């Protein structure tokens, strides 16, 4: 086992444990958000191991730095520390969740038998900011513009939704 593999399994175990901790944490929403940070950071580590360096940096900046902080802001703004809800009683959603788990498990068993080929050699500079940026501003230029419009709409929408009274 090489160092890369050891690191991958370490990060994978960390991501799984913290994701489970987030979903199963019934008492403390702040702790659930902190578990989400751990998941995001370990996923960024896995991205580095998979040679996606720019994506890893953006993952840490956007998810660890912005999105989870937004969650924490809202949790503390609404003062939800001690909220405890009983789990839902609808059998239909539980049935649907069970079906999804079964389907994903079957797919997993099929995958783990080793169906994928070995990854090929990497081009130099793969996953760096230069290559991804070049692609973003040539082939995917329209996508970048649409993303900027979407973000503008989200800013305006969030402001209007969270305002107490619209004059």
């Amino acid at each position, binding site marked *: 086992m*090489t160092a890369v*593999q050891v690191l*991958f399994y370490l990060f994978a175990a960390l*991501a*799984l444990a913290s*994701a489970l901790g*987030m*979903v199963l*944490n019934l008492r403390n*929403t702040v702790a*659930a*958000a902190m578990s*989400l940070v751990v*998941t995001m950071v370990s*996923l960024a580590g*896995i*991205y580095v191991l*998979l040679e996606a360096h*720019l*994506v890893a940096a953006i993952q840490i900046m*956007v*998810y660890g730095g912005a*999105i989870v902080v*937004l*969650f924490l802001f*809202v*949790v503390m*703004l*609404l003062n*939800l520390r001690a*909220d405890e*809800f009983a*789990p*839902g009683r609808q059998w239909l*959603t539980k049935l649907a*969740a069970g079906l*999804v*788990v079964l389907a994903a*498990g079957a797919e997993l068993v099929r*995958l*783990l038998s080793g169906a*994928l*080929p*070995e*990854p090929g050699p*990497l*081009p130099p500079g*793969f*996953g760096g900011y230069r290559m*991804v940026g070049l692609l*973003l501003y040539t082939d*995917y230029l329209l*996508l970048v513009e649409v*993303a900027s419009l*979407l*973000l503008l*709409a*989200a800013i305006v929408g*969030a402001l209007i*939704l969270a305002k107490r009274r619209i004059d």
Partner: protein
Amino acid sequence: MIPLEHVIGLSAILFVIGVAGVALRRNLIVVLMSIELMLNAVNLAFVGFNRLWPGTLDAPRLDGQVFVLMVITVAAAEVAVGLGIVISMFRNRDSVNLEDVSLLKW
């Protein structure tokens, strides 16, 4: 070299954990976090498959990573609007329990 099957398997397990969180939890904020978890699982699959088919030395292919960047953008927009909805719901109903907003449910 990391076996790609294990990367995709990790992605599937994370997605299932997110589905379980959406289906079983009643706290609206935790449900939003579980949606983020599902989006991250999909991102992991994108990056893994991009590593599997990186293109040739002359013509590298990075489309998977570009899609990941777009998914992150959409996730950020979704969280901003979703948390705005949470705040206005807390103002009107004084609760973030999903059972309290069942007017449109049959």
